[in-house]
C-alpha cells in the first residue's frame, strides 16, 4: 500500500452565472483592475488516498468525487492524483 495525494477542482458549469465571481470581479474593478474579467470562483479540495497503485488511487478519488464532492446538475470537476513524495 502507498499513499497518494488527490486534488479535486470543482467549478460551476459554464453558462451558470457565478454571482460570487462577478461580485469579486466588480470589487477588483473598483480597485483599478480594469483588465480583469470572467472571474469564476470554485472549490479546491485535497485529500490523501491509500491504495495499491496509482490507478487504484485514481479510481477511488474519482468515485469519491462523483458520489459526493460535485453536483452534476451545476458543477464540473478536474481530478489530479499523484504519489505522495
Amino acid at each position, binding site marked *: 500500500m502507498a499513499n497518494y495525494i488527490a486534488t479535486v477542482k470543482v467549478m*460551476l458549469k459554464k453558462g*451558470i*452565472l457565478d*454571482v*460570487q465571481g462577478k*461580485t469579486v470581479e466588480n470589487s477588483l474593478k473598483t480597485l483599478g483592475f480594469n483588465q480583469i474579467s470572467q472571474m469564476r470562483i470554485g472549490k479546491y479540495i485535497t485529500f490523501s488516498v491509500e491504495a495499491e497503485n496509482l490507478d487504484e488511487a485514481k479510481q477511488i478519488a474519482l468515485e469519491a468525487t462523483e458520489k*459526493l*464532492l460535485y*453536483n452534476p*446538475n*451545476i458543477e464540473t470537476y478536474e481530478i489530479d492524483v499523484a504519489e505522495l513524495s
Partner: protein
Amino acid sequence: MKFGIVVFPGSNCDHDAYYSLKHNLGFETQFLWHKDTTIPSDIKCIVLPGGFSYGDYLRTGAIARFSPIMKEVVHFASKGGLIIGICNGFQILTESGLLPGALLKNTSLRFVCRDVYLKTLNTNTPFTSLIEKDRILKIPIAHFEGNYFVDSDTLKELEDNEQIIFQYCNPNGEVTEETNPNGSLKNIAGITNKNKNVLGMMPHPERYCDSILGGTDGSLIFKSIANFFF
C-alpha cells in the same frame, strides 16, 4: 394520518414544523432521528425541515442526503408516500435526486428573510388541493441558497408535467422580475416530482400557521396534505 419530521444535525425549523402541525393544526406528529433506519408505518407524510444540516458544508443538503434515514425516505417516496421539503429540506431533496435541479446562491448574494407572495400553478396535487385557484399565498422566506436552477430540457419537462407548483409574484399574482427574491429560473419557489408526491419549496409554510405570528396561509398546504388521506 401522522406527520414525521426528520431531525438532521443542524435542522432548526424542526420544532417550528412540529409546533404548527401538532399545536396549531392538531395533527398527530412525531420527530424522526436522522440515524433511524426505519420509518414507522403510521407515518403518511414526511417533513424535511429547514435549517443548516451539517452546517451547509460542501453544498447545502449534500451531506444530509447520505444520512441513514434518507435511504428509507427515498424508498418511502418510491412507494408513493408524501414528502414535503422546506428550504434546506428542498435542497436535500434536489441533492438526493428526488427532485430535479439545484439551489444556487441568491443573485443578490444576500440572505433574504421576508414575506413573499406565491402563485399556485397546480392545485391538483396532494399539497395544494385546498388552495383556491386564484388565491395568492403570503408566506415567509429565509435563505441564502434559494436560486432554483435546472437545465432547459428538464425545465420544459417540469412545465409540461405541471410540476412547477409555486412562483414568486406580487400581491396581485403578477409574476415579474421585481418579485423574484433570489434569481430563481421562472420565479420558481416550489416544484414536485413527476408523480406529485414529493414537494420541495423554499418558503416556510410552517411559519405561517398561526395568526399571532403574522399569517395562516401556510396551513393550507398542511391541511391539503391531511385532506388527501380522508
